């Protein structure tokens, strides 16, 4: 009985979500992406807004694959990082004063992806812990300087012990161990999968130029457009 009720609740929940989200398409959310016909993406060093010194370079290792799989040519991220470092640019904040058109002059890039790492934390409470990763991605045209696509998303994973039979001390110890071992990178990869699903696909993807009507199921945080569009 309990199971039945929770299943009905779950279905209701799923139902609600699907109806609000259904009408919003990629074309509606990101019209510029279709106008500009972007082929290449330059990922510049990330701005690290966290206290974890290696967050930006570790997160950067997760980006090439999902962007390439979305059909874009992605300039080698390790090399781009080394190139900027040789110019004295380590953190993304330093790239903000560079006009986007400069990346076209330098590399021939159609677009530039600005990454900001907002959360890369572990928190503990008595019998549980949580690992949180949050990123903001902004794709800007190097031809017009206009923002083409934008997303901000965070995921937190609980690392507490699930074993009801464990004593309190065992729980505390096991939480400390799992939280220390839980890596941020798999969580970052999960974020990328969800976020990149909203990106209109590029020339190497079979749906290139055909995904205008695909629904966007994830919305940028604080987006007011969600309500406007949903009520239409």
């Amino acid at each position: 009985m309990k199971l039945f009720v929770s299943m009905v609740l779950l279905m209701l929940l799923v139902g609600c979500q699907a109806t609000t989200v259904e009408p919003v398409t990629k074309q509606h959310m990101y019209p510029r992406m279709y106008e500009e016909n972007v082929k290449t993406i330059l990922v510049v060093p990330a701005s690290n807004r966290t206290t974890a010194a290696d967050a930006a370079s570790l997160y950067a290792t997760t980006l090439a694959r999902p962007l390439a799989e979305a059909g874009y040519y992605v300039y080698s991220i390790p090399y781009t990082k080394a190139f900027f470092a040789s110019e004295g640019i380590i953190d993304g904040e330093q790239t903000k004063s560079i006009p986007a058109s400069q990346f076209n002059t330098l590399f021939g890039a159609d677009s530039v992806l600005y990454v900001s790492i907002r959360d890369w934390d572990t928190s503990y409470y008595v019998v549980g812990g949580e690992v949180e990763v949050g990123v903001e991605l902004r794709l800007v045209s190097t031809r017009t300087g206009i923002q083409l696509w934008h997303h901000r998303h965070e995921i937190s994973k609980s690392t507490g012990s699930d074993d009801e039979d464990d004593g309190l001390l065992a729980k505390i110890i096991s939480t400390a161990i799992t939280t220390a071992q839980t890596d941020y990178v798999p969580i970052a990869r999960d974020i990328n999968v969800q976020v990149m699903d909203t990106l209109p696909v590029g020339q190497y993807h079979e749906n290139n130029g055909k995904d205008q009507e695909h629904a966007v199921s994830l919305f940028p945080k604080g987006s007011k457009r969600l309500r406007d569009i949903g009520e239409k």
Partner: protein
Amino acid sequence: MRKTYLSVLLASALLSGCTSNTIYYWGNYENTLYRYTKQPGADTFERHKRELERIIANGQNGEKPVPPGIYFELGMMEANSNNLERAVSLFRQEKQAYPESTQFVDKAILMLERKRG
């Protein structure tokens, strides 16, 4: 409601289809790059380099192409090991596979030649 439930099922089936159905062959790329980034050293460098070689061999013989940037990345690693000829040859393969990389790659070749003196 049954309809929405079905469509959610369908959507998740499609979604999971997408993740396994990739355009490129990636091998273990993300993991070896991650380890090399986390702990740079001769061992992690070699492992990542070997993985790039494997991805290229697989991409050239298999059904899925070599992903963008892989020839180039291996080229940079060869350049760092002072194998400049192999580096330039890999850079040319990157351009051949992905002509849109031409300006970027030519710039890297120029910098390499300048470094060589």
